[in-house]
């Protein structure tokens, strides 16, 4: 998830939670406010009444032992004044039921006893709780609507603001990281931002890219120079030996020795070429712009390599269960990868052995696997088989210099192909290449 989406998402969620909490708490709060407001009013009414009683005497309301009562037409408020027993004392505000003209109604009632002369009186002022609570619901609704509106507004504002403030980061990611095609670097372009973190990030990425670029450039120069310096002397020696072969006065014995020299020279040449190839691959000097089909590639491989099967009478089976078009690959390199794997499968195979090369979809990935019936690889050697110049113990007698699998590895890495090896000593090995989705165009 993108940072901006995450931020907006988090903001929205947290706001919604707070608003919901508030709306849920609202009835209680309003009730509390109403209660204290009502109580306040009841007390004020009581004080007023007592004031009137004090100024004008109790007779204004009560004459003799009669009681006084008054209520509003809809009975939401009432006042009553009674004569109370002499020792009776009360001063409370509480919710109680009262019967007013056959209607039982819930009231918030202030009860207060006071003495006038020798007589004790009980004053009750009531307000119906229904009339107290009736504002709660609409208040809650209005509050909820207003708050939701505000939340939406702030989410939009947050979105706009975070999008504005994160724009430099997006630019950095889009132009400097995602589209970066090593090793083709473009000139540094500063990303305009006032956020110091982004400035720091931008500069750091630029410095790193520059360092990588320098390293790539250096290695490229080194490869080119090393190649020139190594290949030129080999070339001279090779030409000299070839010309000497032609001379009429060279004895057969000398020719045999020349042949030995030539063989050694080819070995040197082969190692040098292979090492340079690996460096070039790792230096990203090859393009990935070819396309071919699995069937075609494997057929070419078969044509090239079939002669090597003859010596040990090995049978090679090509099983292209799913033929696909491969794109964004380097055909030369991919061919060499497969050639080396099959060549190894031949070299380490037994007489009358078998090799099966299969290509198919497996668990959602396109796989090419090469299975042989050869000597296998010891478990403790498996982790090292892709190391340069590492020869397997059993392979010492073979005419190779231990660069076959390192080439395979670097070509696979170049194409982002995963290699896995399963091997049972004495029974054979299976190398499986899992191709990345980007190299598969379409099923055929």
């Amino acid at each position, binding site marked *: 998830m993108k940072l901006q989406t995450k931020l907006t998402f988090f903001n929205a969620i947290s706001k919604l939670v707070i608003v919901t909490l508030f709306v849920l708490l609202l009835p209680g709060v309003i009730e509390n406010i109403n209660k204290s407001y009502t109580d306040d009013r009841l007390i004020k009414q009581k004080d007023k009444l007592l004031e009137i009683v004090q100024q004008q005497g109790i007779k204004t309301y009560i004459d003799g032992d009669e009681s006084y009562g008054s209520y509003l037409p809809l009975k939401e408020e009432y006042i009553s004044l009674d004569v109370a027993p002499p020792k009776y004392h009360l001063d409370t505000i509480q919710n109680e039921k009262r019967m007013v003209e056959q209607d039982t109604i819930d009231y918030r009632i202030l009860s207060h006893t006071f003495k006038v002369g020798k007589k004790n009186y009980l004053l009750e002022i009531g307000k119906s709780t229904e009339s107290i609570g009736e504002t709660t619901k609409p208040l809650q609704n209005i509050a909820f609507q207003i708050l939701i509106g505000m939340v939406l507004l702030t989410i939009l504002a947050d979105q706009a603001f975070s999008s504005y403030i994160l724009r430099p980061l997006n630019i950095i990611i889009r132009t400097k990281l995602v589209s970066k095609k090593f090793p083709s670097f473009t000139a540094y372009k500063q990303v305009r931002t006032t956020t110091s973190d982004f400035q720091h990030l931008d500069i750091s990425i630029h410095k790193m890219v520059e360092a990588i670029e320098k390293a790539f450039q250096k290695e*490229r120069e080194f490869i080119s120079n090393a190649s020139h310096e190594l290949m*030129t002397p080999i070339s*001279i020696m090779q030409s000299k030996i070839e010309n000497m072969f032609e001379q009429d006065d060279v004895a057969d014995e000398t020719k045999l020795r020349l*042949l030995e020299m030539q063989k050694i020279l080819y070995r040197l*040449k082969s190692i040098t070429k292979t090492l340079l190839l690996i460096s*070039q691959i790792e230096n990203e000097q090859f393009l990935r712009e070819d396309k071919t089909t699995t069937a075609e590639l494997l057929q070419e491989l078969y044509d090239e390599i079939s002669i090597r099967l003859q010596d040990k009478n090995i049978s090679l089976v090509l099983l292209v269960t799913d033929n696909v078009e491969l794109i964004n690959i380097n055909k030369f390199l991919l061919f*060499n990868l497969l050639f080396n794997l099959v060549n190894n499968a031949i070299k380490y195979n037994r007489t009358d052995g078998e090799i099966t090369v299969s290509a198919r979809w497996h668990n959602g990935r396109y796989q090419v696997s090469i299975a042989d019936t050869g000597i296998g690889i010891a478990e403790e050697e498996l982790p090292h088989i892709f190391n340069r110049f590492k020869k397997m113990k059993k392979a010492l007698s073979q005419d190779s210099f231990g*660069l076959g699998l390192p080439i395979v590895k670097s070509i696979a890495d170049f194409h982002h192909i995963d290699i896995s090896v399963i091997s049972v000593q004495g029974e054979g090995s299976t190398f499986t290449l899992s191709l990345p989705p980007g190299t598969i165009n379409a099923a055929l």
Partner: protein
Amino acid sequence: MNILIIEDEKALAQELELFLTKNNYVCEVCYNGSSASEKIAVNLYDFILLDLGLPDYEGLDLLKEARQTNPEAACIILTARAEVNDRVIGLDLGADDYLAKPFSLLELQSRMQAIIRRKFGVPQNVVDLDGFLVNLTDRTIMYHVNPVNTITKKEFDLLAYLLLHKNRTLTRAQLGEHIWGSVINDDYDSNFIDAHIKNIRKKLSAFAPAEWLETVRGLGYRIKTNA
């Protein structure tokens, strides 16, 4: 055929000159770019062998000059630089072929022959080997009037290479490099050449024993012919 060899490495230039002169080419050698530039401007050549890594001259510039003053000449780039793009650029600029050092002199001659066939349109190039008619243009073999169509592409490549260098012993390494030149692999012994030769002999002997295809003990193979 006139050849201009542009190569700053004297030892190599001399070997090239020696080999090509022996094979009846007329050679001139330049050890640096500026003298080569002068020669190209004045003389006409059939072949220009150009080393890209000259100390005093950008090799590709020399190629451009050669294209202008010697449009008929076939250019072969020889280089020890390992820039992958060089090949593409060189061929784009009009080079006819590209050989990476170290190369075999035999391979160079084979490439030159291929260019001659392509450029100058040699009429049907058929060699008669004791009744086997090897057509290098169509890449077919007939035994008198019967086609020998069991020979594979690789086997024909081998035969053609041996035939191009007829009466000369080619080692397994040389043959192997020609056949598997584009494959980078970890072997340095080309014993599989023996299997190829064995197959070729078997296929040809269905018509007549191919005694002209000789094994030179301990050295390699040779096609012996007066044709």
